[in-house]
């Protein structure tokens, strides 16, 4: 295989796109991040470098490997960069029409055998694929966040994807060092369906005065062995993200468990978005630790 351009082309230089890029770079893929905003090129490159440097300082990566990984990276605003890619991964905002339009536009540029990947967490992969002009080559790969050690990827083929495209996507996830599971195209797939409902149940239990935030988190960690309590987890994911995913699931399923508890809407309206904003259910110190007492 002669490789001149990127093997993996990722559209969107946000946290999700960069996270996937770091995995691809480390796995040895020539990787392009394509962001329509040219002013983002420097910023995105710097953030990827930072992410790799963090792994070097934690001892997970040798400095020479980080350098080699960076050498495989192209950050650009030119969509033509994807022309030789085996995998074209969209990691843009969660809007169905935008995702469809992007992939449909690329259909004229990309290799005919390229696999189109949507990283959507809450939209139907079948619906996205239907608007791309290449539904048989379009597969869902949900890279689950937050990813502590090993990242989970939920691979979804939708109703139209070919076996070949699906197998290639799953193999990619495995080469990226991820744990993969295969799931049908249903709202929330596996992870978010269970996570969002559990988080909303926890929030409602707190709203109803069943117990305190701290006690609910402690009970879930010590009684069920979960790595994080539900409030710590939603603060880490971001209340705005949780609200968006929950609302999307409710729209699809009309199941009351996914209707967002009023408290979440209040907190989001007040700008208390979680750990990233310094305050969500808990208040955080500058170093990201929960302030107690």
């Amino acid at each position, binding site marked *: 295989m002669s490789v001149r351009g990127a093997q993996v082309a990722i559209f969107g230089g946000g946290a999700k796109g960069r996270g996937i890029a770091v995995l691809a770079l480390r796995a040895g893929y020539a990787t392009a991040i394509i962001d329509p905003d040219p002013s983002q090129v420097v910023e995105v490159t710097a953030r990827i470098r930072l992410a790799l440097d963090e792994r070097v300082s934690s001892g997970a990566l040798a400095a020479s490997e980080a350098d080699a990984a960076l050498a495989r990276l192209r950050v650009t605003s030119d969509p033509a960069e994807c022309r030789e890619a085996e995998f074209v991964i969209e990691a843009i905002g969660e809007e169905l029409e935008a995702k469809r339009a992007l992939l449909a536009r690329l259909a004229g540029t990309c290799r005919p055998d390229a696999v189109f990947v949507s990283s959507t967490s809450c939209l139907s992969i079948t619906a996205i694929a239907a608007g791309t002009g290449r539904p048989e080559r379009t597969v869902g790969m949900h890279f689950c966040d937050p990813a502590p050690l090993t990242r989970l990827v939920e691979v979804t083929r939708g109703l139209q994807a070919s076996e070949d495209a699906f197998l290639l996507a799953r193999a990619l996830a495995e080469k990226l060092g991820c744990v993969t599971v295969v*799931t049908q195209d*249903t709202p929330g*797939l596996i992870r978010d369906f*269970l996570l969002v409902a559990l988080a909303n149940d926890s929030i409602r239990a707190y709203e109803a005065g069943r117990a305190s935030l701290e006690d609910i988190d*402690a009970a879930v960690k010590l009684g069920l062995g979960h790595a994080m309590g539900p409030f710590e987890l939603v603060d880490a994911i971001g209340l705005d993200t949780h609200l968006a995913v929950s609302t999307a699931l409710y729209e699809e399923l009309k199941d009351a468990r996914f209707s967002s508890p009023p408290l979440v809407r209040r907190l989001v309206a007040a700008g208390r978005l979680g750990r990233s904003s310094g305050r969500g259910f808990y208040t955080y110190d500058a170093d990201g630790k929960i302030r107690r007492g």
Partner: protein
Amino acid sequence: MGEIRRVAVLGCGVMGAGIAQVAAQAGFQVDAWDITQQALDRGRGEIGAFLEKAIAKGKLTAGRRDAILEAITWSTALDCVARADLVIEVVVENLQVKKDLFSRLDGLAPGHAILASNTSVLPITELAAVTKRPDRVLGMHFFNPPPLMKLLEIVVGQLTSAATLAAVKGFGQAIGKTTVTAKDAPGFIVNYLFIPYLNAALDLYDRGLTSREDLDRAVEAGLGHPMGPLRLADLVGLDTHLFASEAIHRELGDARFVPPTILRRMVRAGLLGRKTGRGFYEYEATGGAGP
């Protein structure tokens, strides 16, 4: 409220024996009660086996084991509660059985004694109501196995006093537990969150969304749970989960607690999980699974 020095544990199954052991290990004098001598012997056997393993691992001396075992007095006479400062009831999850026992206890235990139930699904306030000391009744929900699980859910009934809660929190700390406090609402904290979660996961599986292995792996890798839902259901026991789910549904009428149809089908088929060798997964007979 006086200091807690002596504890009575009523019921010597795995949970009761574990609670008696935890209290004895922390230096409390313990009266362990059950209806039959056979049940007491089984409870003593459970504790002995646990401590033996700790000795084999070098975590406990034989002298310490003897001291722990000597701190427990075994009895089939309920009047052993007459010297208790705290009584922890760990009998079968049947409201009438528990109410009858609380009513008898109320007459036998000293006036200052706190009466606690280890129930995971029944209403504490209803148990308190059969006594003349509802201010000194609350829930102490331990997790299985009590010597290893750090959590103690303290359940505050409608009439439980602040002094009773404080005394039991202090006791919880003294036996090395992290205590959380919950209202007397069905499922308290852990089961209120766990049961709908498990029901939803079983329903997902029943709909053929994914394989049993992928479902478990998604939860383990994607949510950081120690065990996926199907493996966990097999460990808990499908009949046990069905019982708890139905009990809470009766109280709340909340659809999240309606047992999924796959759960009923599997229980009807006798596929109860590890204890029957087959649930969502198949298990080899270990031979050493105990009585």
